[in-house]
């Protein structure tokens, strides 16, 4: 089992929860679950997501 880390919002001191979050890039909108602070709404985007799936979406949408 992978370790389940609990991330705490530094500002609100509340545990982040996965929530459906919208992205917009080059006029296209997408959603996926992202860890979000239930208090202030700040999101945490882990490096593997930024360099992985989000980067892949960008690559697919950018002109050659």
């Amino acid at each position, binding site marked *: 089992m992978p370790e389940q880390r609990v991330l705490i919002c530094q500002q609100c001191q509340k545990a982040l929860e996965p929530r459906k979050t919208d*992205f917009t890039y*080059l*006029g*296209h*909108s*997408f*959603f*996926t679950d992202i860890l979000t602070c239930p208090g202030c709404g700040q999101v945490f985007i882990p490096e593997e997501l930024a360099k992985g*799936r*989000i980067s*892949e*979406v*960008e690559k*697919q*949408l*950018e*002109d*050659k």
Partner: protein
Amino acid sequence: MEKDLRGETFSVCPICLKCVPAERIRVGGAVFLRKRCESHGPVQSVIWRGHADFDAWIGGAEAAPNEKLHCTDCSGLCPDHLQKTCCVLLEVTKRCNLACRFCFADHARQEEPPFAQVQSWLRELADPGKTLVQLSGGEPTLRDDLPDIIAAAKEAGCRHVQLNTNGIRLSADRTYLRALSDAGLSFVFMQFDGTTDAIYESLRGKPLLGVKRQAIENCAAENLGVTLVPTLVPDVNMRNIGEILCFGISEAPAVRGVHFQPVSYFGRFPAMPADDMRVTLDELLFEIEQQTAGQIRAVNLLPSRCDHPLCGFHGDFMVARDGVLVPLSQRGKTGAGCCSGPTTAEQSRAFVARRWQRPPRSAGSAPCGDFGDMETFLRRIQSHGFTVTAMAFQDAGNLDVERLRRCSLHVFDNGRFVPFCAHYLSGWRA
């Protein structure tokens, strides 16, 4: 008649092929390439009909400092050539099983290099891990050892191996097709001029629609992506553009896109064509939008930035449910990492390979759900990406050295990389 000072370039005399000064002349929204040979007099060819704004299309394609250099002597890439190789075309045979009205290749010869020679060329041309090689001819599938050639290309380090074919053998010989696939063939570029047999009878001398359908079906069974390649000829298939696109979309994901090639007058064509025998890029953009009732809009088709903007365009789409196309590219929205300047050959090669090659079967079938969901979108674009592209080859009538110097499609000819349109350039009788 208005002379465009930015439009000064060089071309060739269509009779003697001597390099001559040329200029782009505007008449209303239309643009003509005009030139004069001291021995054979003046000629001009239409290059833009005025369906779209010429300057907006050309964008930032400014002339380079040494633009006016002789680049048409077919002696390979000169030091001032402005683009690296995106795709390398290698002729593996001169033989063909058709006798088409229009063909850039010279079928008068029946030569075929031995396998060892082809293997040696492949080793010479390959940049390991990068090269996209197009095996062409003649008709390459007339060679029984084509699977060995594909394997040799992969062994030499070619990343992608594309087959340019009329599809006749692929439709009839599943064992052969399986061998091509097993050897490492990446994708197929298949001549596909229209959706009626009359079109094939006019251009290729035979009714071939059934053959094309069967070839697509057979390629689908091997998980080989097929890009349809229509040669567009006025009075033959210009009214079939919308039908071709509809057919291609209906055959997705086996069909990965449509690559239009407006007719160019190489080789066997006897005389300089009149302007109404030509198809300009803006005319094609207009017809695509008209004939698809706006499903594909001209604004979703972007001028080439790997080659010169007058050499082609590309549009990136995804096929949704019921054959609805979702446009991914739009002029003015090209990505944070990009600008209006040229793209590299590497970027262009990665794009076409990403779209034209089918994902492995192990990736499973892609859902057709809510494309707002990032995972659904990513799986669908990989399986059901669809490109609408065009490449306008130049002949002795409309050749523009400024365009030639930005060419990224190079023919490998005995150790030399030669811009495609320079390699196949041929003159006409006076």
